[in-house]
């Protein structure tokens, strides 16, 4: 059964890269009764451990989401900003944004001269106030904001913001709650700063020094009109990544995940992504190397305020994580 209430809370929780405090606290509260040990490392990664004396396995899903950082507040009280993570200026226009303090704004553009290209520096955020004191008190350079959009679901699919990678967090939370009987020493990592370059995973990988690492993250699909050419489809099950820009999945890990899926009748599909990377990138080259792979949740419309995934795929991903934890 898909836990819509949990997913909605995860999606709605504030946490752009480097500002993961709120989402970290929410997840910690959610998992504290299920882990043997919970730690927070210097960069802010949340690490939940199920102790064992066997193989050391690391699962990682990132808590952070894309957003904007305020770089300047002008005389009129209009805010200038820069991207936090991969965002395109033309996709931002007209969007509603929300800050950690709950205040909102809308993205507007300067009047552009002929042939002038729309860029982030030509956009500004109007926070709906002409009261200078109110603005000075509530908006500071360095504050971040994220998309404001409402969670929505049908019988089989969900539309929400920050499915990247709160759906990965959801998968790990559910797997931890249903942690299998095993002798393995398992670390569920909720990492920081993936969207700006998989930074949290680097230090978590170093610290934990695992025998096997699996990132759980969203991936693109090839099932939309004139979309990218790739074989992944919504509803076709958990995606086992073979390659992206950050990793070529270790063949033994690929075989392991495939074998677990086959033996447990988990529906799966192979994924080759020609762009992007995940936490598995820095983890697999950590220290003397870590055999690593990625379990992906196929997601349409990535890095927008309405990302779409399939609930059946999510269930298959959870089963695959649980199966791997026990291996």
């Amino acid at each position, binding site marked *: 059964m898909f836990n819509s209430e949990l997913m909605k809370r995860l999606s709605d929780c504030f946490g752009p*890269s*480097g*500002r993961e405090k709120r989402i970290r606290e929410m997840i910690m509260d959610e998992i504290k009764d299920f882990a043997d040990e919970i730690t927070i*490392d*210097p*960069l802010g990664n949340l690490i939940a451990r199920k102790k064992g004396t066997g193989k050391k396995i690391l699962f990682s899903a990132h808590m952070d989401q894309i957003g904007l*950082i305020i*770089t*300047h507040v*002008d005389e009129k009280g209009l805010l*200038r900003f*820069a*991207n*936090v993570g991969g965002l395109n200026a033309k996709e931002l226009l007209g969007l509603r944004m929300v800050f950690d303090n709950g205040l909102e704004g809308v993205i507007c553009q300067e009047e552009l001269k002929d042939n002038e290209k729309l860029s982030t*520096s030509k956009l*500004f955020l109007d926070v709906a106030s002409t009261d200078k004191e109110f603005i000075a008190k509530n908006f500071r*350079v*360095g504050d971040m904001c994220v998309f404001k959009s409402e969670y929505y679901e049908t019988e089989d699919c969900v539309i929400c913001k920050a499915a990247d990678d709160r759906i990965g967090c959801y998968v790990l939370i559910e797997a931890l709650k249903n942690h299998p009987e095993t002798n393995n020493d398992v670390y569920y990592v909720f990492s920081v*700063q993936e969207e*700006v*370059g998989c*930074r949290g995973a*680097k*230090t978590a990988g*170093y*610290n934990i020094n695992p025998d096997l690492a699996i990132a759980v993250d969203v991936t693109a699909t090839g099932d939309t009109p004139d979309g990218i050419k790739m074989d992944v489809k919504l509803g076709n099950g958990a995606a086992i990544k073979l390659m992206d820009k950050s990793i070529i999945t270790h063949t033994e890990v690929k075989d392991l995940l495939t074998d677990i899926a086959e033996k447990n009748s988990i529906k799966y599909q192979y994924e080759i992504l020609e762009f992007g990377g995940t936490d598995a990138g820095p983890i697999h080259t950590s220290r003397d190397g870590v055999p690593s792979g990625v379990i992906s949740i196929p997601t349409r419309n990535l890095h927008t305020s309405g990302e779409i995934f399939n609930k059946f795929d999510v269930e298959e991903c959870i089963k695959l994580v649980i199966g791997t934890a026990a291996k």
Partner: protein
Amino acid sequence: MFLNELTKLSGVSGCEFEVRNYIKSKLSEMGCQFYVDKLGNIIAHNKGKKNKTIMVSAHMDEVGLIVTNIDSDGFIKFKAVGGIDQRVLNSKVVLIGENNIPGVIGSKAVHLMTEKEKGVSLPIDKLYIDIGTSTKEETEKLVNIGDYAAFKSDYVEFGDNMIKAKALDNRVGCSIILEILKEKLDVDFYGVFTVMEEVGLRGAETAAYQLEPDLAIVLEGTVCADMPEVEEHENSTLIGKGAVLSLMDNATVYDIDLVRRVAKIAEDNNIAYQYRRSTSGANDAGVIHKTKKGAKVVSISVPCRYIHSSVSVASKNDLMSALKLTKQVIIENQKGE
């Protein structure tokens, strides 16, 4: 002030020995304990009251050129080392190699240019260095392929407490560390002078690996864009408005609680500060915070106009603000929680 002497030295990335030798001699004079690591970073230790491991770092290297070819007429072809401002290379004086052979960067005369070439900055492959020789053999006696070339540009004080020099990025940082080390404060910290920042933050990574700091303070000369034709929100930093605190750049999202704490320290001590309005660029903080188990980082910079060219301009007032703030941050952090 160490800055005057520091900006006269050549230290293109990978060839920092002049700067390193100068800093080593100053550290010895001060009686400061230090060592040089395998990549050439200097790691100095100021012993004192300790609550956590603090690393204060600045890179010694500067952007410059490397000799790639010598032609039959003795002219020298070169490539850039680091993100040099290629628009301004023409007609500059450079010093080449360990013997500092002077040369002039030249191109064909304006009289000979096509209409298309006029008014356009020349790409590096159309430029050459002239060292006053006329054959390949003569040039080869003085310069070798692989030699580095650095800008020659005097240190000048002018205007309202302003400095003009080359390589203010990042000799300002090096001078701040030396000034603080000289004070022999009773607080523990490592003063680290790194190599090869301009080609990809390389020295800082190995330095942080050795020290495993809890807190790193990265000192920098940073982009200042307060000139005509730049819109207010794209200024990045303003000269004369104080020490610069970074919030985010291409390599680091700074811990906001820490940044605000540093801002508070500045306010409490009447030190002028400003936030960096741009998120472009990167500095040593980018690798330090990700090394081993991870570290907290803060970046304190001095605004430098015309950065990565042969002349850059900075304010002595900003330098003093950055120095005071750095010192205060070290002291406050070694006090204990």
